[in-house]
């Protein structure tokens, strides 16, 4: 399906990542946003609030992030594509509803423009320390999808992908920006609507009476309906059967939780998205995501000038993690260098995939600014020894 022209500002723009993310959401068909202001994410909802009246849709500033994160779930069950936008403290408040979105299989996008933490931390400065929280923050076992753009252009492009993934797999999808990507202004090209591929909701073609709200086929993703269509659905956060009715026993739990997890794990290789630069046969592989990938790229290029066979693997999608690809590279690489704006989160996944076959050198950072390219360069040189 093509994008609805009403939401698409085709042309060349000079805007920051927050604004580009908003345009991406509008182009993807998002027509309901509930949010609560928080630096450095607020510009996303401010732009949405100013754009939506003439596009057709609703923005509401709720009383807090708990409310925002469940209002969008109501909006999704009423048939809209939905998004909420926040940063660390708000993300922490949303956690119960990440679980609700997972268990009710409600497509939604949660934008997290990361800032330094813990707690109020560094409201106006960057970090990448929510990587594990988006994956594990709500209680119980589950899988989600998370993307991490490194430029305003990608804030637009990947936002469309984020909505498409949310609709395809019916999971909450995190859009992990950071303060620098959110506030950096660059050229952003918005294509014509017919050049933007948009995935529609997986609406059922079954009639009321034939349809079970949580009956899934081979892809493990059930078809959806919306309130008001006569299906008289029941949707609950309790463990439920295919009819959506509470079924609180170990058998039903096993069936549901396995399906919720496997609908992502079984499609992991389809979902994974990495950008590779000279990784094949490299002695050293730098693994990065988000804003850090831009600093790392500079360091990689400097190291090449010094004769190091170094590659760069950048995660465009952080979750699911590209463990298979990293394991392959571990067959030939001597070392992996892992810079990230946190004290060592993604590196745990890299270590898990490498599984002792190569050295793994973390470059932690407490956040507040980006790495110095020299720090990464030095680590690459050390790894190449």
């Amino acid at each position, binding site marked *: 399906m093509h994008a609805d022209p009403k939401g698409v500002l085709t042309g060349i723009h000079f805007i920051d990542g927050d604004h580009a993310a908003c345009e991406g959401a509008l182009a993807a068909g998002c027509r309901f946003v509930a949010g609560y202001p928080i630096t450095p994410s607020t510009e996303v909802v401010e732009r949405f609030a100013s754009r939506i009246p003439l596009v057709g849709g609703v923005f509401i500033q709720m009383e807090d992030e708990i409310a925002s994160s469940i209002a969008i779930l*109501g909006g999704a069950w009423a048939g809209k594509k939905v998004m909420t936008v926040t940063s660390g403290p708000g993300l922490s408040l949303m956690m119960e509803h990440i679980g609700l979105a997972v268990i009710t299989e409600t497509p939604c996008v949660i934008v997290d423009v990361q800032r330094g933490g813990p707690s109020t931390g560094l409201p106006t400065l960057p970090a990448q320390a929510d990587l594990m929280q988006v994956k594990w923050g709500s209680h119980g076992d589950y899988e989600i999808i998370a993307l991490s753009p490194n430029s305003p252009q990608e804030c637009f492009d990947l936002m469309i992908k984020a909505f498409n993934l949310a609709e395809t797999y019916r999971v909450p999808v995190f859009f992990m920006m950071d303060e620098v990507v959110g506030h950096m202004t660059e050229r952003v090209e918005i294509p014509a609507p017919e050049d933007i591929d948009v995935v529609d909701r997986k609406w059922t073609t079954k009639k009321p009476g034939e349809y079970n709200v949580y009956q899934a086929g081979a892809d493990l993703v059930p078809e959806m309906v919306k309130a008001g269509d006569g299906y008289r659905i029941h949707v609950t956060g309790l463990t439920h059967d295919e009819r959506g009715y509470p079924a609180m026993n170990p058998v039903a739990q096993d069936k549901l939780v396995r399906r919720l997890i496997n609908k992502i794990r079984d499609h992991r290789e389809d979902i994974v998205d990495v950008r590779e630069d000279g990784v094949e046969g490299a002695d050293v592989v730098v693994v990065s995501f988000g804003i850090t990938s831009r600093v790392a790229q500079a360091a990689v290029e400097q190291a090449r000038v010094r004769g190091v066979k170094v590659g760069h693997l950048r995660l465009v999608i952080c979750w699911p993690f590209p463990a298979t690809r990293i394991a392959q590279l571990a067959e030939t690489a001597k070392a992996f260098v892992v810079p990230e704006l946190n004290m060592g989160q993604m590196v745990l996944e890299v270590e898990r995939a490498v599984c002792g076959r190569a050295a793994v050198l973390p470059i932690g950072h407490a956040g507040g600014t980006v790495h110095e390219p020299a720090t990464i360069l030095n680590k690459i040189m050390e790894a190449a020894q």
Partner: protein
Amino acid sequence: MSGLPSLNANLEQEFGLINPVMPYLRQDRIPHIWCPGCGIGTTVNCFARALTDSGMDLDKVAIVSGIGCTGRVAGYMNLDSFHTTHGRAIPFATGLKLANPGMKVVVYSGDGDLTAIGGNHFVHAARRNMDLMIVCVNNFTYGMTGGQVAPTTPIGPTQTTMPYGNFENPFNLPFLADACGAVYVARWTVYHVKQLAKAMLDGLNKKGFVFIEAMSPCPTLYSRRNRLGDGVDQLKYYKEKSVIRNGADTKEVGIAYQGEIVVGKFVDRERPTWLDSMNSHFGSVFGDRFTPYGVTDGQE
């Protein structure tokens, strides 16, 4: 709530009688979880009556609950029904309503759910005049979790977390709803089934934030713990100590332990809803460039 399916089937076969509530329930989910003497089922009967009398297209009515004994109501109603998280039925319902304004959205939950953990959402939805009908089953306690103190518990009775008697001041819920801007505020008990059903009918027909408090016994926890007898004894209390005072000043309708219960319709006024305000405001700002939102939505 009446009866098991077998009993119903017998009535139907032998006497040609159909329990008029049954079509409104998900019959494959009966028997329900509520205790004998619990008042929640009575409120559901009233709600079913109100739905019948409203003549509404039931495909366009959604019910949203939080978590609690009352929170289970959504799961039994044969409507589009959503059982959400504790305290958050109102913001879920807000999203549902705003994204499909053609729906009538009813929030049905407990006193703890709506006014303790969900209190912030309650006051803001009333302030905004969000077009939602709120049914609050007030049993003075947290039923689902075993009888802890609630923001509605009067001073005096014991609760598991107020083992020496409650010393916290309770909310007067009609006053709270009134002060925050609700356009319709009523309180009835499960003794007043006709009036409660009528209030629910009023609520279904009213646009804006409607608040209906349904006083309801929890014989298993609140009554037993405080030696107040069974469900019937609580009904007797409601019967003897209720006074109907329509239009009463909501400031004056607080409830003391086993004290007088002022019931009635306290508030019935008009205010533009959130969506009406949005549409008229954007209409004046953007003129013809603005297409009123939700006017055809939901009627596709």
